[in-house]
């Protein structure tokens, strides 16, 4: 065969879940299986392996949760460090590394918000590349509420009870409104999930522009949701009767 004859698969490398590799132990050629077909040794999961491929799922957002659980448990068992306790050091290390990666993959995909954020990073290179317009109205609203919150925190119970009560009632009303808004955003996010899943999975057919439109839409909802989530958390922490003031500087 001539060197220049294109392989039938040329240009379709994306269909291969993982690059070809070699078994670290017996050097036989592999195509991304988790265990070597010849010497049966466990193989280290590549750092480049994306979580969907790792868990044998299509890159969809409304995912088959049962399939996710089943694959996760099956792989957990096969990588579990307990089974490698008597093996040599390299196998122990691979078992630990794979288990850690698998756990992260599972946690990320199980949570819808993390799943969407992960997919955006994966598809856009980096979520930060998608710049959504800053929600000026939302910022103004948040700053105003934070100022009320500061005042509320500074008033200790016992003194200025009337003002405290007034602020508390206002903040509780705002909290309910914002919680409803957050729920709305999550509904809109689910709608984007379905739009993404409806795009044809063949890269040639789906234009990048189409993909980007959905990704940007999702990124915008996710960003705004983070701002709303933060202020809701602050409101909950400050206005719940038993709560500490709840500010967390370590996040």
């Amino acid at each position, binding site marked *: 065969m001539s060197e220049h004859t294109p392989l039938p698969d040329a240009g379709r490398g994306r269909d291969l879940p993982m690059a070809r590799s070699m078994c670290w132990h017996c050097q036989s050629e592999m195509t991304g299986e988790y265990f070597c077909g010849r010497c049966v040794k466990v193989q280290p999961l590549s750092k480049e392996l994306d979580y969907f491929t790792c868990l044998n799922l299509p890159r969809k957002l409304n995912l088959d949760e049962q399939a996710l659980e089943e694959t996760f448990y099956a792989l957990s068992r096969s990588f579990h460090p307990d089974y490698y306790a008597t093996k040599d050091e390299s196998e122990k290390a691979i078992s630990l590394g794979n288990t850690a990666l698998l756990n992260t993959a599972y946690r990320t995909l199980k949570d819808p918000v993390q799943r969407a954020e992960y997919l955006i990073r994966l598809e856009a290179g980096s*979520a*930060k590349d998608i710049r*959504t317009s*800053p*929600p*000026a109205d939302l*910022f*103004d609203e*948040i*700053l105003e509420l*934070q*100022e009320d919150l500061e005042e509320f925190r500074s008033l200790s119970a016992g003194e200025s009870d009337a003002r405290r009560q007034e602020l508390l009632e206002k903040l509780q009303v705002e909290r309910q409104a914002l919680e409803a808004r957050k729920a709305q955003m999550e509904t809109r996010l689910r709608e984007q999930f379905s739009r993404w899943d409806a795009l044809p999975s063949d890269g040639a057919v789906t234009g990048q522009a189409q993909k980007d439109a959905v990704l940007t839409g999702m*990124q915008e909802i*996710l*960003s705004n949701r*983070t*701002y709303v*989530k*933060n202020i809701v958390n*602050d409101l909950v922490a400050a206005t719940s009767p038993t709560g500490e003031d709840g500010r*967390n*500087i*370590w*996040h």
Partner: protein
Amino acid sequence: MAYSEKVIDHYNNPRNMGSFKKDEDGVGTGIVGAPECGDVMKLQIKVENETIVDAKFKTFGCGSAIASSSLATEWLKGKTVDEAGQIKNTEIVQELNLPPVKIHCSVLAEDAIKAALNDYKKKADTEDVPEEAATPA
């Protein structure tokens, strides 16, 4: 995770916390947010004769975001508008010893400075030009 002493100092004793009235003469306001963590930062400058005579901030977020904006207001005071535009987030990272996961806080502070400067320039431009002349024929 351990914060550097400088971050803790700015967090415990924030410099220039507060705000100016947005429509006050010579005041530029920048409000920015970090979508990754949901922090919101407001930074304001007060300019007289192209020099920043005062700066204030309000940041609702983590310790590093508060420290970055607090430091930024300190640096802004006394600088000309052009000099202020030269402040880079990497200088904030260096000064505060921010760890890699907190670099975005310094980026937020740089964005806030730029937004405040732009707001100031926009306001200055519309004030300088008489109204008829500002509308294109």
